[in-house]
């Protein structure tokens, strides 16, 4: 008992016991005391923030003005700035350039032919690395043409071609500003935290109100979503340029500006390219979600198919997204790893063989395309549709395995999901707030405790307590399962290099997939409900658990393992007594990432019919109720922030204890 007390378990056991007791008997207590406030937050204390926010937004759009222009002029100006290049890319990739409008429109220039686009991306692949990558990228785009997804894919590509430069340049400049001026850095940090934790649906609503339904609103949402990592990576990459390089620049007599553009930014470029890769992948992810507010393209196809329960169509469009994600990811990663190479010599054509040949193909196919339509547009008659095949396959699976799937579903629901749900839903709100505060205080001191109390109180006061508990329960169970599956996989990957290559490669691919894609198979096999949501969340959040576990085990210093071997440890003992304890900080970081991903995915699973905060946000989106969306979104963000800080504090404690 004394040992227990010393190691601090008593605190956790007591906390759990009290929570469990209160959760079990809260309803009886309310009946006995006739005190409804125990299980329901009193109505008269509620903040009613959602109404105020909605009114504020209405005022902003309707009547706010700065001296010379109204707020609406501002949003219209922004929209126009984004609209013009977007239309250009749409013309370039899909519609072609024409003059005049309506009936009188005549085409001046055709759009890029499908052959031209494929040749261009192949050339980019070759430039970024080698012919192998070029082949992969080319094949991915050819797939889009052959399987009849070309036009939707080009709409998605046009959105990405707009969102990525804005995200990269905007994020880069914010990062540079934060690097140069400490106050910018300090002001940006909480904003970035919020931007990364508020679920995407939540800011779709105000954007919808400010910019109206359509691609521009979708692009604005995409940029907001994809920019924060670029800002962070820019700051980190500039800070990690060696001091000596800076000094070398100063001693060469560089001005401030020359230091930034001739020394810092070029030296940081490889890391900055990692940021570009992140922006591309996040943009792709968001462009798909943003199809709900008018982005169109592949995301819209998936969404429409899901609504029609058109299984084949959904899988087809979903696979097209996967293929495109892989192509964009590999190509942009290759750019990040690209080494500086000696420039070719000779005349212009010899120095730029790729660009010249790509240009020739573009011109050639455009000219030929006028005569032979098949060169301009991939003929429908050549395209292969896999839709019916998928529909049949799914039917077959459902007919033959329905019972098995159903049995698994029922068992897990009965023995895991429902009891946990009951436990969390039963916790009286007042005790929930206190318990969160105690946890925060215990692991991270009183500031963290106070923060947790305030944030949980905000959720309760917004009347969202019950929904929040559903979110916490679903997230908790999913994270638990993802960890239970992920950590052993990570250990396996670290211990057996060959298996590791396959596992980690698979995880890499899983991570490049836009979150939307995960919903497709899940909804087809398990239909709607908490169980489907949980499966999708586990799949989406699995990768970091595996990766951090593998990474943490591999990071254990060779010498310590050798010391263990010389002390006569069996391989099992080495793993259990040396590697795992030393890897705990990494495991905790993995847990942190898993939790963050789980929360972000959980909101999206609102589409498959959960009853949590995500659903609240989604309903607000469909009703265009900005206030409710923002309040529910903030609540999700607060849960994410508390989880993040608590797990980070635990990891930090472990790291200190191990002297790392």
């Amino acid at each position: 008992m004394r040992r227990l007390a010393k190691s601090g378990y008593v605190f956790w056991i007591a906390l759990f016991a009290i929570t469990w007791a209160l959760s079990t008997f809260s309803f009886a207590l309310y009946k006995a005391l006739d005190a409804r406030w125990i299980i329901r937050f009193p109505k008269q204390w509620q903040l009613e923030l959602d109404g105020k926010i909605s009114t504020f937004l209405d005022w902003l759009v309707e009547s706010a003005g700065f001296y010379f222009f109204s707020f609406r002029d501002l949003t219209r100006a922004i929209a126009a700035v984004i609209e013009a290049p977007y239309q250009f890319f749409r013309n370039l990739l899909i519609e072609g350039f024409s003059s005049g409008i309506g009936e009188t429109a005549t085409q001046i220039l055709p759009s890029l032919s499908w052959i031209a686009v494929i040749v261009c991306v192949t050339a980019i692949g070759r430039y970024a690395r080698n012919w192998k990558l070029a082949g992969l990228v080319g094949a991915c785009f050819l797939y889009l043409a052959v399987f009849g997804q070309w036009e939707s894919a080009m709409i998605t590509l046009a959105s990405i071609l707009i969102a990525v430069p804005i995200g990269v340049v905007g994020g880069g400049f914010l990062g540079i500003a934060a690097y140069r001026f400490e106050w910018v850095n300090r002001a940006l940090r909480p904003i970035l935290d919020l931007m990364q934790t508020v679920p995407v649906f939540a800011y779709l609503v105000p954007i919808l109100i400010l910019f109206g339904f359509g691609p521009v609103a979708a692009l604005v949402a995409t940029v907001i979503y994809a920019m924060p990592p670029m800002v962070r990576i820019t700051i980190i990459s500039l800070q990690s340029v060696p001091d000596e390089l800076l000094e070398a620049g100063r001693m060469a007599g560089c001005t401030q500006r020359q230091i930034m553009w001739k020394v810092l930014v070029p030296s940081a470029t490889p890391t900055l390219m990692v940021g570009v890769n992140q922006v591309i992948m996040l943009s792709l992810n968001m462009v798909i979600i943003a199809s709900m507010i008018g982005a169109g393209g592949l995301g819209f196809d998936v969404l429409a198919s899901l609504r029609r329960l058109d299984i084949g169509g959904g899988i087809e469009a979903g696979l097209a997204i996967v293929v495109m994600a892989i192509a964009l990811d590999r190509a942009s990663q290759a750019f990040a790893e690209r080494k500086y190479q000696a420039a070719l010599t000779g005349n212009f054509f010899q120095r730029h063989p790729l660009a010249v040949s790509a240009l020739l193909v573009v011109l050639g196919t455009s000219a030929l395309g006028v005569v032979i339509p098949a060169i301009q547009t991939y003929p429908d008659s050549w395209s292969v549709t896999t839709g019916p095949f998928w529909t049949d396959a799914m039917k077959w699976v459902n007919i033959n395995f329905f019972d098995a799937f159903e049995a698994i579903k029922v068992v897990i629901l009965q023995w895991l999901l429902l009891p946990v749900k009951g436990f969390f839903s039963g916790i009286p709100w007042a005790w929930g707030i206190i318990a969160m505060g105690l946890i925060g205080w215990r692991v991270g001191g009183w500031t963290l405790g106070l923060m947790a109390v305030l944030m949980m109180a905000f959720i309760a006061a917004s009347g969202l307590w019950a929904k929040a508990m559903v979110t916490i329960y679903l997230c908790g169970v999913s994270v638990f399962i993802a960890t239970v599956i992920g950590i052993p996989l990570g250990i396996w990957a670290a211990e057996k290099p060959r298996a590791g290559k396959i596992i980690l490669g698979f995880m890499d691919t899983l991570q490049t997939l836009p979150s939307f894609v995960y919903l497709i198979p899940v909804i087809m096999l398990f239909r709607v409900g908490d169980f489907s949501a949980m499966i999708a969340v586990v799949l989406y959040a699995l990768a970091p658990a595996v990766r951090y576990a593998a990474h943490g085990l591999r990071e254990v210093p060779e010498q310590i393992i050798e010391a263990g071997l010389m002390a006569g440890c069996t391989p099992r003992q080495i793993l259990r007594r040396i590697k795992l304890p030393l890897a705990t900080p990494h495991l905790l970081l993995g847990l942190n990432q898993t939790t963050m991903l789980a929360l972000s995915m959980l909101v999206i699973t609102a589409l498959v019919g959960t009853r949590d905060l995500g659903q609240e946000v989604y309903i607000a989106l469909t009703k265009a109720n900005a206030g409710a969306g923002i309040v529910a979104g903030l609540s999700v963000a607060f849960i994410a922030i508390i989880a993040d800080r608590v797990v980070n504090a635990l990891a930090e404690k472990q790291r200190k204890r191990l002297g790392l």
Partner: protein
Amino acid sequence: MKKTTLLECRDVWKLYGPAADGYLSQNPSPDSNDLKKAGLIGAVRAANVEIRQGEIFVIMGLSGSGKSTLVRCLSRLVESTAGEIFFEGKNLLDMSAEELIEIRRTKMGMVFQQFALLPHLTVLENTAFPLDVQGVDRTTREARAREVIELVGLKGRENYYPRELSGGQQQRVGIARSLVVEPDLWFLDEPFSALDPLIRREMQDEFMRLQNMLHKTIVFITHDFDEAIRLADRIAVMKDGAIQQIATPEELVLNPATEYVAEFTRHVSRSKVITAGSVATPLSGDSFAGSVQHNDLIDSIADQVESSETPFQVMQDGEVIGQITRQTVVDVLVGRR
């Protein structure tokens, strides 16, 4: 002959810690205990250095002794907490940012421990970089860069990227870059410390070869006492931010000012430091086997003198100032003197 002073620093301090800037105005000369009490770190304490035209001035100290901070104060890469630094008679610390940039562009060059080459530029572009930032046109700056690259022995590798070169070659690029503007004052911050011992030796020879051609004024930082003795005209030994002694290698070995300096000199092979002049004794007879110059190292004349029965004359400016005997040489070689 007295040489003119190019760079001089007077009572330079660099303190790190909270409220370091105000501290010195209230406590003009704190010792290390005072600083500890105030929670400050004295990276450089009351440094007085005078660097003369054309000499190699070595600042020697172990890691954490403040030698790197001192050289950064001298080049104003780090702002000193207090003191004055005169470059060509003008106070460096009073200069505006523009003046400082101008001076660095034309009169100073610096070589760094980890080479500090820009990874995205070729050897040629790296070397031409200081000219590039001044706005010199491409043909001129590349022609000049090619000259310097040839000077440091890298001809034929102009289009290589830094990652394609060995450590020694990278540092040659670093040297070429620092020389491309023909600086008057050349800082070298542990330029050879990151290299393997054999390469280090080779680079030291290369450095001496360059210096014999160029006659720069040099501030050279090292933690290697042997390197300091090999290269220096004068050495400043630093410990805990304070300069212990400034002297020629020979004086350091013969008259170490502190116990700390003596500790370094104890294991130095003295014959490579001590000159004939400083161990010459009054003439005892008039039969001599030959003559040596007063600034010849004992090491270089040992064989000759030791194999002869009779002493050698020691000459300075054409006059005999004493003699050196076989016994004296043996004394130096075994460390009795």
